[in-house]
């Protein structure tokens, strides 16, 4: 089995090549089949590999395959080598499994789009890069995958490139990511300086002896993780990334790419354990991000933006767990989150698709009658996200809260972070069911009743025209719903070899369940029965201020705009008008041609066609030569 690992990233890459180069000439059906077969094939190989890893003697058993030497320069050697152990095996399964489902969904969602083949090509390329990222056995190869997924994220966010906003969103994502990547690169250099190797195994084994260096390395790597996984202060690209097609949002910005940062921390767990200061920072930023994003999600009216901020918030939870040293708990939440967030995004996509690309929730409502399947499956996702008892999200989120409260091993429990986590869980349930209520419950606000046509201000589609989505979109939703319900029982932390102290677990589960139910109940009550409570709150001065903070996203984007974007734009304008136009174009280019012309003008007087002039130059020359001869002979 060792010899077949390379198929896991290779199959999607081949899919990319075929659909990318030949896709224009193939039928949509062929493109879809190739595009879905590639990740499905990778999934099959991943399952086989994982099964073999599970049968190994110890929990650290792994399969490795070195493909070729990539860089070799003196002592520096980096190979293209892949390894499947329990951690990367789980990641592979999630990426290929959820990825395949999303590919199938895309065949229905993207139907009729002129860039059909291009979409699947990019999606497959993304899968290939992501799989390289998770199976890499050294950090440089991982960085290759890291950059690859960043590239694909840019390509897919700006997929409908004719719209300026889409392209800007893609650029924003790439640039913000790049800032994080600087940290990552510096971390790689620091690793080389401290350890002399890039391989994860070697680094982890030697981690104990490099305390001082570990702090800086981990800090730099965490900056990289913040960029990719949308934590404070580098999360601003994720909500804008919703400009891309919904399957992209589901795959890249919910289930897989954004989790790379968490995976990085899990991979280098022993190294981070040697830097407790950084872990504290990680946990704090994770908790704060979770809270901040939840507060912004309250006021969003776009169905995808709510889910985007929700993703940022849940990623914060994962970093909170990682910051407590409980990396496998973070991975557990990563897996369950992949299931239910992909489900929610795909469900939102189904709604958008059925409403002919309406995304504003204020134009929705009462859709549960017209879209029963979508409603049921979306509801399951919402329950999982809110941590409703016994769903996958319930178990993973409570595991996180448990380690935040009681600590793990050498890391003490931090009560303040636990409280933040609990409050955020309440908010999560609230805004999630606010969304459910606005979209599916109540009555339809999108189009007027026939009688009230003249007075109504609604702009949406007539209710009768709203239809359920095709099977190609519904089956993946079903699969993901099943996983969202059953996934909690997978006990991934135990799988990954982590034993968590049990005391207080039951109490924690009960508290988590109560919080979740409270949030759900409050949201449903307010939005369905007692909207006046909300209106009174929003009319009051503190309510207005909080609402403004939330809708303006806490002014973070505006701060960045003022502090960073505008100065850089001014610098760019300066460079353009002064350096490029003035100095280079006018002074240097036109200037040099002008200088040549001027010299030519002067020199032209030498040859005026008049013989006496030439005679005079003869004389002058003769005098000069004579003078020089006398001077040299005399001296």
């Amino acid at each position, binding site marked *: 089995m060792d010899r077949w690992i390379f198929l896991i990233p290779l199959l999607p890459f081949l899919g990319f090549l075929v659909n990318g180069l030949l896709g224009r000439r193939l039928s949509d059906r062929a493109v879809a089949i190739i595009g879905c077969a590639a990740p499905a094939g990778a999934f099959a190989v991943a399952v086989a590999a994982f099964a073999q890893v599970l049968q190994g003697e110890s929990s650290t058993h792994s399969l490795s395959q070195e493909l070729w030497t990539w860089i070799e320069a003196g002592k520096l050697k980096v190979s293209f080598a892949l390894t499947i152990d329990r951690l990367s095996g789980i990641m592979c399964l999630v990426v290929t499994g959820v990825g395949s489902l999303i590919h199938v969904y895309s065949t229905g969602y993207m139907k009729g789009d002129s860039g059909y083949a291009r979409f699947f090509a990019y999606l497959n390329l993304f899968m290939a890069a992501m799989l390289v990222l998770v199976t890499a056995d050294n950090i440089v190869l991982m960085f290759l995958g890291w950059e690859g997924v960043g590239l694909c994220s840019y390509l897919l966010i700006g997929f409908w490139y004719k719209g300026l906003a889409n392209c800007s969103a893609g650029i924003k994502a790439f640039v913000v990511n790049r800032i994080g990547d600087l940290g990552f690169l510096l971390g790689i250099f620091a690793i080389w300086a401290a350890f002399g190797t890039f391989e994860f195994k070697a680094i982890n084994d030697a981690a104990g002896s490099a305390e001082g260096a570990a702090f800086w390395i981990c800090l730099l790597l965490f900056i990289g993780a913040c960029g990719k996984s949308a934590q404070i202060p580098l999360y601003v690209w994720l909500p804008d990334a919703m400009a891309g097609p919904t399957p992209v949002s589901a795959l890249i910005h919910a289930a897989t790419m954004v989790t790379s940062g968490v995976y990085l921390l899990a991979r280098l767990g022993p190294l981070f354990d040697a830097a407790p200061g950084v872990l504290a920072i990680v946990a704090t930023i994770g908790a704060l991000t979770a809270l901040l994003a939840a507060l912004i999600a309250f006021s969003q009216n776009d169905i995808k933006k709510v889910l985007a901020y929700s993703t940022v918030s849940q990623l914060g939870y994962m970093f909170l767990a990682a910051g407590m040293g409980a990396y496998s708990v973070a991975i557990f939440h990563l897996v369950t989150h992949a299931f239910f967030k992909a489900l929610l995004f795909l469900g939102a996509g189904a709604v958008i698709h059925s409403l002919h690309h309406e995304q504003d929730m204020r134009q929705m409502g009462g859709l549960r009658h017209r879209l029963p399947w979508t409603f049921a499956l979306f509801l399951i996702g919402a329950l999982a996200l809110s941590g409703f008892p016994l769903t996958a999200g319930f178990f993973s989120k409570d595991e996180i809260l448990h380690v935040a409260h009681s600590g793990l091993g050498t890391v003490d429990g931090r009560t303040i972070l636990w409280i933040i986590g609990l409050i955020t869980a309440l908010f999560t349930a609230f805004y999630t069911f606010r969304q459910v209520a606005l979209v599916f419950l109540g009555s339809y606000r999108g189009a007027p009743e026939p009688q009230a046509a003249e007075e109504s201000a609604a702009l949406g589609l007539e209710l009768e025209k709203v239809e359920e989505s095709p099977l190609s979109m519904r089956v993946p939703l079903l699969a993901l719903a099943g996983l969202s319900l059953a996934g909690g029982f997978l006990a991934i932390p135990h799988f990954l070899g982590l034993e968590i102290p049990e005391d207080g677990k039951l109490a924690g589960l009960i508290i988590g369940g109560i919080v979740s139910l409270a949030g759900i109940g409050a949201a449903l009550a307010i939005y369905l029965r007692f909207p006046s409570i909300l209106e009174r709150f929003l009319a009051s001065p503190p309510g207005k201020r909080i609402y403004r903070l939330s809708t303006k996203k806490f002014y973070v984007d505006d701060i960045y705009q003022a502090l960073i974007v505008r100065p850089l734009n001014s610098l760019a304008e300066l460079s353009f008008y002064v350096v490029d136009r003035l100095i280079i174009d006018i002074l240097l280019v036109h200037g040099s041609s002008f200088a040549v012309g001027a010299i030519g003008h002067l020199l032209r007087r030498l*040859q005026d*066609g008049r013989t006496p002039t030439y005679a005079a130059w003869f004389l002058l020359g003769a005098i000069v030569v004579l003078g020089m001869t006398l001077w040299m002979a005399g001296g």
Partner: protein
Amino acid sequence: MSLSLDLCLYLCTAIFSIGVYGVLSRQNIIVILMSLELMLNGVNLAIISFGRYFITVEGAELSGVGASTSQVFVIIVLAIAAAEAAVGLAILLAVYRRWRSTRVSDMRLLKG
């Protein structure tokens, strides 16, 4: 006063300079040719002067330089000057046929 070398050379310089002035500043092409001859003759005079001067200096017989050396030199120069004058006049005739003028400033194709 006796005829010193300096005096002879002053005369030669004067003749030569007049010739140079004539070549550079006169418009009539025949005058230019005549001035050219003047320059040549000026130089001839200088050579003869040096020849005469060196005879009266001690050690001149030792180095083999004598009056006859300069005289031979000048004869050759004169012959060449004559030949050159003939060629110059032939060129003048050809140029006159083209430009129909004897003014040197009329004989140009370049516009300046």
